């Protein structure tokens, strides 16, 4: 009997740890509702939370796809800044249609990502180090392209000094960054990544590589091809993230996406253990991003000064991670 009881308490503990991120999220909602119920729970504020988390989530999804086969990309968000420059410049400077600007942005991001893949797959540099170097390359190349200043309405084209083809942003352009479109884009990205990773053989192969690359290779999985595939999918999500940032800010500021990296990675790490998955997964990333954004929103409403927000946010993240990794050693 004794062993049985021990097992059931272990099971409860395991359940709590597996769902720690979700429980933390629910707790946030309960606490903030108790403190500032009417305002916090209003539909308008719920939309605020979703708006704020949408960009982090998309970058998080990009990181999730990279990390599924045990890859890593530190340069994701500096590349996203480049994507944003390309997107806005195509639209404003060269007068391409919105659709063509999006296509060009994705294509250029894919091309830039070949360099990442070259360093990782051909030169065999560890992911972390290769992308660390590329972070600087992206920053430099991107700013060279935009001539060191932001890409926004009313600015002349650098290098040539020509007048831009467009002087204003259209309604459709701005809509990408507004509710409900930006939220729909985020949910579509999460859904696409979720289906790809969990229900296609390609996704299962990526997870197999993440679990044990050598065993995956000796099962006949073409590991290089699949790492490349993961990279290309990551690049598409990076481009989408860049476009969202530009649309939301109505311009492409210098380094506009750079700061999203750590938040996105935090979302992936928090979401890793959701439901006992123990691997980077799309739904977990969504939960992780939502936790970060809810906290930020709730604390602001509770009039916590903005300048100490990061400390509180970081502490709660650390707690969620502690729960996620607490059960690890036992096994």
């Amino acid at each position, binding site marked *: 009997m004794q062993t049985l009881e021990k097992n059931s308490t272990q099971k409860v503990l395991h359940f709590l740890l597996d769902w720690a991120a979700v429980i933390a999220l629910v707790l946030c909602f309960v606490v903030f509702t108790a403190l500032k119920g009417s305002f916090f729970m209003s539909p308008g504020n719920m939309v605020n939370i979703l708006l704020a988390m949408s960009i982090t989530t998309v970058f998080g999804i990009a990181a999730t796809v990279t990390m599924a086969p045990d890859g890593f990309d530190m340069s994701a968000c500096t590349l996203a800044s480049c994507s944003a420059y390309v997107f806005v410049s195509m639209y404003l400077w060269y007068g391409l249609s919105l659709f063509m600007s999006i296509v060009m942005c994705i294509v250029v991001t894919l091309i830039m990502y070949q360099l990442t893949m070259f360093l990782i797959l051909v030169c065999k540099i560890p992911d972390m180090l290769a992308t660390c170097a590329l972070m600087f390359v992206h920053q430099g190349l991107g700013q060279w392209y935009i001539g060191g200043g932001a890409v926004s309405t009313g600015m002349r084209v650098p290098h040539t000094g020509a007048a831009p083809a467009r002087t204003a942003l259209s309604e459709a352009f701005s809509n990408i960054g507004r509710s409900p479109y930006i939220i729909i884009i985020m949910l579509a990205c999460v859904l696409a990544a979720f289906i790809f990773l969990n229900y296609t053989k390609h996704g299962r192969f990526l997870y197999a590589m993440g*679990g044990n690359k050598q065993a995956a*290779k*000796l099962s006949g*999985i073409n590991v290089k091809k699949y790492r490349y595939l993961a990279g290309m999918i990551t690049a598409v999500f990076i481009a989408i993230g860049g476009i969202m940032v530009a649309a939301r800010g109505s311009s492409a500021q210098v380094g506009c996406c750079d700061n999203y990296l750590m938040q996105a990675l935090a979302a992936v790490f928090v979401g890793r253990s959701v439901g006992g998955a123990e691997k980077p997964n799309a739904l977990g990333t969504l939960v992780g991003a939502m936790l970060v954004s809810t906290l930020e929103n709730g604390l602001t409403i509770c009039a916590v000064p903005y300048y100490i927000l990061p400390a509180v946010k970081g502490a709660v993240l650390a707690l969620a991670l502690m729960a996620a990794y607490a059960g690890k050693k036992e096994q």
Partner: protein
Amino acid sequence: MDQITLETRKVSIEFPGVKALSDVDFQVSTGEIRALVGANGAGKSTLMKVLAGANPSYQGEVLLNGEVVELRDPSAAKKLGIQIVYQEVDTALIPTLSVAENVMLNDTVMNTRGRPVINWSKMRQEAREVLGRLNIKNINARTLVQDLSLAQKQMVLIARAIQSQCSFLILDEPTAPLSDTETVELFRIVRHLRDTENIGVIFISHRIHEIIQICHQYTVMRNGEIVGTRDVTAETTSKEIVEMMLGRTFEENFPKEQVKLGEEFFEVKDLAGGDGKVNGVSIHMKRGEIIGIAGLVGAGKSEFCKTLFGGYKQTGGEIILNGKRLKIKTPSDAVRERIALVPEERRKEGVLVNEDVSFNLSAASLGKFCVASFVNKAKTDANARKYVEQLGIKTPSIRQWVRNLSGGNQQKVAVGKWLAADCDVYIFDEPTKGVDVGAKQDIFRLIYDIAKAGNGVIYASCENSELLSITDRVYVMYDGRIMAELVTADTSEDEIMHYSVGGTTAYVKA
């Protein structure tokens, strides 16, 4: 020199649901070499961990020279002079540090209070002295441990063990990864330690003939209990030890089944590769045939298997299957050509330990279970149930993660994955390594079934007795080359060994 006796009285250990040790009375003295044998899960390692202080929750008493001692943590055991060298040497060594640092690690950690500065020349000198006590001359104290061979790493660990006070040395399956010459060297060191330092050595091994060679006495364990302790005499046979281990009489040779051979369908000509360890290997095979690759550790057997499978770069020669010349650059090419490999390191290479049984069994053939790239879960599960039943894989459910299965069952999963992929050529690299006698027979049966279905099997192993009982023909490898092609029915272990050590002259039957 005084004799010290280490004794356990009624030591028991319970894990949730299992009694790993029950009332074990075990005794060993300095100056003797004692073997501890038993099937997998018999409790050998658990008992040794108690003595090493790594199992603090034991019940019962441990006595040293008749006095009760508490072995509740590893440092307590070390202080009493009980040292253990675990099977996985890499877990105990720091690869990026030098030999001297690794040998002197305990000393550096424990005895440097108030001495913050490392005296390098003194440390190296001391390490050299310890190695000298073992009569080891081929290891430089400045070398980084990551550059050593496995056998040398083991020597470093033994050196570390005797560097601090040591009356008892526990060696957990030390010879499993060693070649025969390395084993001889290890035995020399063990005997040397007994003679010059009066150390009591406890020796865990699955290789029965080694025990007969080196030990004075052997203790047999079964199901967490001691079955008995006997002296090793000239009359001791491995059959008697195995029977004690299993608790039943044991048919030593697996009954050889005759499989009807089909046409020649697979040929390898002058294959080279494997990082320079395969230099022109030619073999041929009929349908339904089981061919053995014999040779010592380091002869290039694993490298040959992996080169065939695309795991190593092929630098020369050709592979012909069903009259077609194959171009194999990566394992995925090999799988496409219906070649399967069950690799030697199963946890590291053969199975995906963090995935469930169902996914593992379909991992090599997932395409078959997909509709437009989408995995059909019902189909993969049906496939998993089929092979779990057919292979007798013991698992609570097909959703169980493979890391929770026992070694033998993991091996069955590693094989089952390829059965589902329906290949022509199955390569097995040391499939019985670390598998107990019962599961071994299951694996042999499986291999026969594969051959009976008209496929070819390549069976690489350094266990010559296994090769003799299961194969039709044996190729003996030495230094990346085939030394001889032998028909199993007309050969002997001696003949295989003759060619394994590089014999170029024809073997003369004694």
